[in-house]
Structures are given as C-alpha cells and as structure tokens.
C-alpha cells in the first residue's frame, strides 16, 4: 500500500477515536511541554548567567578575609602593593565595602558603598554617563565626593538621575557631593552590584565612613586567563609571609572564572534535572500509549484478520499500527509545544528566565516521536504477527 493511502487509513481510524486519542496524548503533551520548557529555561538561565558575567573580567581574583565581622589581622593597602610585585599580576586594588543609609532629598535608601582607589574605575569598566569619575586629587585630598551606580541614582531620584549630579547626599549621615553617575555595568559577579552602589575615594572611605573598622578586600587582576592560577599561588605566598600570625589560611582567594563556571554548571545541572523529569513523564506516557495500542489491536483483531485476508502484508499491518502510535504521540508533541509557548509568560511572571528556541521545539517533537515509535512498536508487531485465521475467528 502506498504510504499516502496508509496514512489516510490511519487518520480515519484516529479521527474516529478523538476522545481516546486526546486522552492518550495527555502524557505526551505534558512531557513534550516539559522538554520544550526545560530547553527554554536552560537557554534563559544560560543567557542570564552570560549577561550577568558579560562585563566580568575572567582574570579577576578577589582576596578577602575568610570570616565576616571583626578581623584580627586585616588586609592592608600594603598587601595590594606587594601583590603587584608578581609578574602574573597586572593590578591589585584594595577596596572597602560597607552598607548604610543613603539619603537624598529626605529620601532614604539602604544600599552599599564602595571606597576605591581612583585607578580602580578604568580597570573595572566603570565609566561615567554624567559628570566625572573620581580622580587622584580626590584620593589625595580626601574630597568627600561620590559617584553613583546607575541603578542607585535612578532609585534616589525616582527615575530622574540627571538632577542628582552636583547635589548633596548623605551616606550614614555624612555629607557627600555627587560628582557623577556611572554607566550601567550589570552584575560583575564579584560584588553585590556596582549599579546599586555609591563609590567614594579609598582614603575618604577609610577616614570618614569606616575608620578603624576598615577591613579591605583586594581585587587583583591577573595578566591573563592562563596566569590566574600562578597569580593565586603568588598571592598565597605573599600572604603567608606578611601575615605570619594566621598566614594565607585566614583569607579567601576567589577567582571570577571559576565562579562563572560554577554558575553555568549549576544552571546546566538544573536543566538536566528538569530534563530527567520530562523523560520520566514521556516514559510514563509512552506506557500509556502502549497500553492503548494493545487495547486497539485487541479491539481490531478481527479487522486485522480481514486485512490479512484481503492481502495486507505483515509489514503493512506493522506500519499501520506503528504510524497510529506515532501520529498520536506527534499530535501530543505538537500540542505540548503549543502548551509550552503558553507557559512561558507564566514562567516570566515567576521571574524564571525562559527563551523558546527551535532546538527546544525539535527536541520536544523528536522525543514525542521516539516515544511513539518505541512504545508503539511492540503492539504493532503483535498485530502484524497475528495468525490470520485466529484473527478472523476472534469475536
């Protein structure tokens, strides 16, 4: 029989069992929708991670105290200078971080502030969109100037950041003049977020905001990705020499590249987990298909006998029932993809990033077809192997 005719015959059979077909497809619908969404969430998650880390220099290494709170033997500016002696290190900057009330026009907002040496800015892609950046003069003369992250400026001014340049704000009740606003940098992976922070000169932070509680971390820039490990070794050696009391043990040395890798890894693990769920759903739905196909073959035993009597070959009976299973699962797959598209806005509502993709659609459909072929084969084979006489005699 020509494939077109066979298909027609199969479609007639399926069409006249609409309800049963639909119920059979439910599992496949859910399974395919899950696969489609898994791929979408995976792609969305990866895009989010990449976006977050896009501004991140993978050669960045952060040295910080291993414990929070008061530190007996803190890092110092001197450590940063010593790190620079290493051939593997391009830059090393001490920075101070704190958090507190930032007040502008009687509007108070709890956020973080970061005290940085002025050179830090150009080495961390911090460029101003308005006003100017901090400079060496500010550092030397301890000017109480602040440059705001884009998001913080937005929040403080309720969406009208340009008005804040030249105005005064207070950080933990100390007055600062805003001299500029940085461009948006996105999450760098090394700090809470630059966009939400206020930046002041290092010396100013030390003197006015943190005083003796100053407990810097040092951000180090390796000369390249490949020297990150050697740089870490150099840092460890230096710390062991300069902080004899506790050595390098009391500090944590993080490199951004491995953090990026870890974030990507965890996104991938999440996708794999969801994929496993989808596969389980499809297997269960496949067993459902197999069950229904067995019932169908049983129901149509006499018909199969008749078809054999009028000349249907085994291969043709097999193809007919296999095709029926595959079409049922393919219909489920298509409906599943459509369901998946409807589910994406819902995920976005719950702030799960999801990107629909062709590969997700294809993967979902391929899996649904595989389910149909795999679980439809045995019942179809059973049908094909039926003895024509027994089948004809079946009531």
């Amino acid at each position, binding site marked *: *029989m020509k494939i077109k*005719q066979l298909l027609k015959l199969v479609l007639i059979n399926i069409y006249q069992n609409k309800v049963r077909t639909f119920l059979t497809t439910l599992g496949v619908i859910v399974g395919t929708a899950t696969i489609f969404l898994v791929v979408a969430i995976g792609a969305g998650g990866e895009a989010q991670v990449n976006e977050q880390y896009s501004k991140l220099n993978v050669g960045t290494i952060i040295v910080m105290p291993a414990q929070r709170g008061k530190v007996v033997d803190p890092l110092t500016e001197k450590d940063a200078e010593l790190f620079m002696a290493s051939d593997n290190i391009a830059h090393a900057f001490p920075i101070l971080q704190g958090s507190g009330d930032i007040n502008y026009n009687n509007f108070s907002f709890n956020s973080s502030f970061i005290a940085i040496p002025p050179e830090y800015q150009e080495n961390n892609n911090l460029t101003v969109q308005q006003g100017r950046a901090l400079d060496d003069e500010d550092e030397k003369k301890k000017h109480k100037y602040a440059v705001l992250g884009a998001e913080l400026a937005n929040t403080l001014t309720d969406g009208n950041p340009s008005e804040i340049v030249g105005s005064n704000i207070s950080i933990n009740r100390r007055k600062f003049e805003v001299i500029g606003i940085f461009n948006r940098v996105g999450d760098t992976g090394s700090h809470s977020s630059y966009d939400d922070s206020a930046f002041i000169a290092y010396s100013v932070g030390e003197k006015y905001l943190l005083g003796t509680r100053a407990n810097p971390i040092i951000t180090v820039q390796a000369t390249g990705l490949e020297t990150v490990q050697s740089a870490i070794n150099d840092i460890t050696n230096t710390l062991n020499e300069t902080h004899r009391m506790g050595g390098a043990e009391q500090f944590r040395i993080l490199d951004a590249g491995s953090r990026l890798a870890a974030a990507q890894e965890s996104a991938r693990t999440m996708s794999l987990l969801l994929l496993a769920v989808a596969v389980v759903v499809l297997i269960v739905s496949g067993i459902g298909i197999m069950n229904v196909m067995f019932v169908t073959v049983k129901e149509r035993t*006499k018909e199969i006998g008749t*078809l054999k*009597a009028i000349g249907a*070959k085994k291969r043709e009976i097999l193809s007919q029932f296999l095709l029926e299973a595959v079409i049922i699962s393919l219909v489920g797959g298509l409906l599943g993809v459509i369901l998946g598209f409807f589910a994406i806005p819902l995920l976005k509502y719950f702030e799960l990033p999801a990107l629909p993709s062709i590969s997700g659609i294809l993967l979902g459909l391929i899996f649904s077809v595989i389910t149909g072929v795999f679980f439809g084969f045995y019942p179809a084979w059973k049908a094909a192997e039926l003895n024509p006489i027994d089948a004809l005699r079946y009531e």
Partner: protein
Amino acid sequence: MIENAKCIIDARNIVKIYQNGSEKLKVLDDVSMQILEGDFIVILGPSGSGKSTLMNLLGCLDLPTSGQYYLDGLDVLKAKDNQLAEIRNQKIGFVFQKFNLLPRLTAIQNVMLPLLYRGAKEEEAKESAKEKLKLLGLGERLNHRPNELSGGQQQRVAIARAIVGNPHLVLADEPTGNLDSKSSKDAMEIFKELNRQGNTIVIITHDIEVAEQVKKVIYIRDGRIYDKN
C-alpha cells in the same frame, strides 16, 4: 468448454492436523479436489466437518500439514508469508459470513482496500470500486458506513470488495448465514450472475438450500470428501 478449462484449484492428498497439547486432531484427511475456471461449486458439510479448515487452506490463510496445493498453477506450500499475502490479494476474493467490513471506512473505501494493498493509485482504485458497487446496485450508497447499511447491502459491499481485483477465485464462507431469506436469495443471484460472467466461485456452507441451487456440490464430513458430482 469445461474440458479445456484451466485448473484453478488443484489440491492433492491434503491432510491437516491440529496439535492440541499432546492430542493430535486430524481435521482434514486426504482431501483432493480440482476446481476449474468458471466452476460454481458448493462445499457442503455440517459444523465440525472440517469445511472451515478447508476454506482456510483453499484461501491460503493457512497451510496444510501435508499434501500438495496448486492455486492457478502456483505451489502454495512453497510460498512465504509475503507471497501468501500477495496470492490472497491478487488471486482470491473472500466473502465472509459476517461481512467483515471495516466499520470506520465507507462502502467505497472498503471496496478500494484490496486494490490499495496491491499498490494501485487512489483514483484508479476509486473508479473500479465505484464500478463494482454500481454493478451490485449500491451506486447510491458509496459513502455510507457499514452501520448505515442493511445486512444484505453490507454483504453486497463485501462481494464488491471480493471481486474488485478480478480474482481467479471467489471464496465465500457461509455468505448467506447472516442474511434474511430475501437477502440470501439476492446474494445467491449475485453469485450466479458473477459466475455467468466467468468468475470461479466456491461457496462453503451447511445450508442445503444453497447447495440445491448449484450443479456441483462437494460433500465433506469428518474431514473427508464424499460423493462428488
């Protein structure tokens, strides 16, 4: 004319034994028969006589335990599964007691099936099916499903399906068994007419009234053939 006619069925010393556990049941015992082209033959026997088994063997739905069977010169015992399917498709037209129409297909789709299994184009199959259905007076019922047709009409659709591929042999198993007397009579008239047009027809039945309408009757009882005429 009959003397020179081609031998459609040449069965020799057919034995069929069913193995039921350790018990062997000889259903057909040394059956031989020749059926010539253009014959109209009734195989008559009570239930349990082995006539259904004989019909299955003649129809190439089953193979004998021993013996020889040539259908239109072809050695059936040497044929493989697929070849048997082809033989059934091209050389034999089946008519069943319960019509065995496919319930979800329309009359014309049912009749087209044997041609489609032969690989015919849809349009050609449709034309032939329409022609046969019209011939059997079902020109107005082409797109009806079996459940929308009377028993007599269903059997006529089944007969149309049996002859649509111009088989060498029409094999009918109790074709009147599920019909009222009027429809039975009609069906027999159709078979007679088909025979007049040159079709070879074999009817298997336990109904003596059917047998009385034809010249050649083969009696079967306890797996053996008696009294041929």
